[in-house]
């Protein structure tokens, strides 16, 4: 395991100079994941912020093979690439091992790309799917997605006198993915980089489909100071809003337990998208959201067993 200093000094497959916004979490998780790739990698990207801001012609931020197809088919596209690789390998036309990384934002993964992802997982392609989850359609202007947390203000769930933001809770994508009985699925946060990179290593070595759901804050959509990105992801973990866990061959494990669980409001109050929840008339929602997090954590603990 490389130290943070060694990781920063090593050659980057994801090059600087891209045009992601200041403070965006997506390039951070991208660099952390690619830092463990020790073999040639092919990356596919669904339409989204990461795709448009890293491939503005005539430049590219990708020091590896890169393919963009459409919004809904990052996993299907990479299925084809991986199938072609195996065929070429069998025919003796290709030597050496390669890694395959399909990438999508939460819109391109939880919503429009879910069918494509499910197909890839079920067929058993040796592909790592990485979802950088910023909890809304940030590229098109902050519309809600099924990854948007309950209570968040977005342009299609506007908070105001008649509405307190999104009504529905986040979709539990990790559970859906795990139900495909794939070798490896995990949830990570860039604040806990050692945990995240270890999970990325496991994913690349899983020998079958693997899935990483990684928290990637968006300063524009979450409305916070761009310097606070990593701090926010740490708060997401410390409040148990974003538990760090992995599911290896069906066995669920919590990989990090906060020593002292922080109140959810520590995470929420740092973000403009939850500002309305702190009004008197919405106080009950804060309680409900805290209960949701507590229930999820309890449920997780019962599934994973006590720390051993």
């Amino acid at each position, binding site marked *: 395991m490389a130290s943070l200093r060694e990781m920063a000094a090593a050659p980057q497959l994801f090059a600087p100079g891209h045009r992601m916004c200041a403070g965006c979490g997506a390039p951070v998780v991208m660099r952390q994941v690619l830092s463990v790739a020790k073999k040639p990698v092919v990356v596919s990207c669904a*339409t989204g912020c990461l795709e*448009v801001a890293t491939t503005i012609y005539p430049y590219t931020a990708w020091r590896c093979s890169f393919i963009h197809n459409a919004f809904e088919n990052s996993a299907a596209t990479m299925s084809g690439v991986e199938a072609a690789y195996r065929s070429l390998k069998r025919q003796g036309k290709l030597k050496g091992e390669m890694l395959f990384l399909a990438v999508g934002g939460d819109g391109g993964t939880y919503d429009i790309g879910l069918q494509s992802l499910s197909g890839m997982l079920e067929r058993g392609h040796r592909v790592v799917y990485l979802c950088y989850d910023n909890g809304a359609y940030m590229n*098109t*202007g902050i519309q*809600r997605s*099924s990854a948007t947390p309950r209570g968040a203000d977005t*342009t*299609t769930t506007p908070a105001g006198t008649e509405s307190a933001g999104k009504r529905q809770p986040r979709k539990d994508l990790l559970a859906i993915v795990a139900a495909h009985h794939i070798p490896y699925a995990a949830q990570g946060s860039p604040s806990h980089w050692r945990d995240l990179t270890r999970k990325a290593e496991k994913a690349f070595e899983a020998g079958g489909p693997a899935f990483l759901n990684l928290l990637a804050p968006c300063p524009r959509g979450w409305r916070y100071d761009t310097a606070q990105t990593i701090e926010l992801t740490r708060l997401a973990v410390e409040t148990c809003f974003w538990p760090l866990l992995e599911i290896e061959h069906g066995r669920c494990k919590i990989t990090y337990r906060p020593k002292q669980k922080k109140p959810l409001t520590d995470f929420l109050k740092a973000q403009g998208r939850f500002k309305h929840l702190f009004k008197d008339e919405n106080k009950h929602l804060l309680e409900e959201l805290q209960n949701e997090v507590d229930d999820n954590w309890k449920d997780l603990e019962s599934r994973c067993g006590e720390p051993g």
Partner: protein
Amino acid sequence: MSRISERQILMQGNEACAKGAIDAGVRFFAGYPITPSSEIAEILAHDLPSVGGKFIQMEDEIGSMAAVIGASLTGVKAMTATSGPGFSLKQENIGYAAMAEVPCLIVLVQRAGPSTGLPTSPAQGDAMQARWGTHGDHPVIVMAPASVRETYDLTLACVNWSEILRVPAILLMDEVVAHMRENVTLPDPRELDIHDRPGPTLPPGHPDFRPYLPGPDDVPPMAPFGQGYRYHVTGLHHDERGYPVHDGAVAGELGRRLLRKLERREADIARVEWVWGPGRGDRGPRPPDGWPSGRDATVVVSFGSTARSAEAACDLARSQGREAILLRLVTLWPFPDAAIVEAARKVAPGGEILVVEMNFGQVVREVARAAAGQARVRHFGYVSGQLIPPDEIAREIGGRGRTG
């Protein structure tokens, strides 16, 4: 302050579309984010609940179109809005709406394609897809606004015709019209001409009720679900009861009727505007008498935002002594054949019809078909992510061009 000035407002095309939809009686929107159409969804997410309407953001474009059809079947005016890639995904369900005769509005804000294309610069490359995007012979109405105010008007017209004829209607916008801001005065909503779908003449449960029995105008009255009517809705060829059939005669007649109900009203739907000068009075549904005076005149045919450039180009050409007139297509489908025939008659034999569109040649094919060899027809257009500037069009007018 008078009511009219209260309705005078600076707004963009997408806002005018959302406003027009609500004023037309649309109470359901299902959609999926895509630039340059997302403002329509955002505004309706905010505004629909306050008029008793419903906004749903769906998981993708396919689901959006299906939800619109489902909502419309319950008797609610329903719509979606999208751009090229999303429009491609909606096609199967648009065909279903045509076959099952479900009124609906699809707003297509064009951006440069194919595929993800040039997000999100303007183009008019979806003119043919708007007509023929879904498989099989099918009816569809397509209108293309050129200004913010016209976006409001045509949203209304599309909803009206869709309801009257039970066909999908497509408002074919482009990025320029969608995002351009203009000062507009909107009409008093109480004075609008609003049409609803024809309702059933028999009460629910009546033994003679036939959900797809057409009226004299070839349009079957539409029974809303949720009010006691029970019937079968299918994308298969079906008989008057709505049940699937393989009888060739029944299937053939259904296919013909679906097109015929539109053809009957073609003259009313297929609208154009002739523009022969910069003044307010220099435009109308017919060209001025006595035009052209010479044998070397040009009719410039255009639509959407490109028609604005074309209008300025005609002004410029006239100021340089060339005879030019703009024929702006307000409706693209059903295609305004009659206006093209008139244009051909006006310019022949010495002049030409110059079709200007932000694509590599789509509507020009329809113009050539309608002109039927009676006049010379030439295309000018390209896709660069920018509007085609008036001076480039002006150079083509009377210049006989590069391809001629």
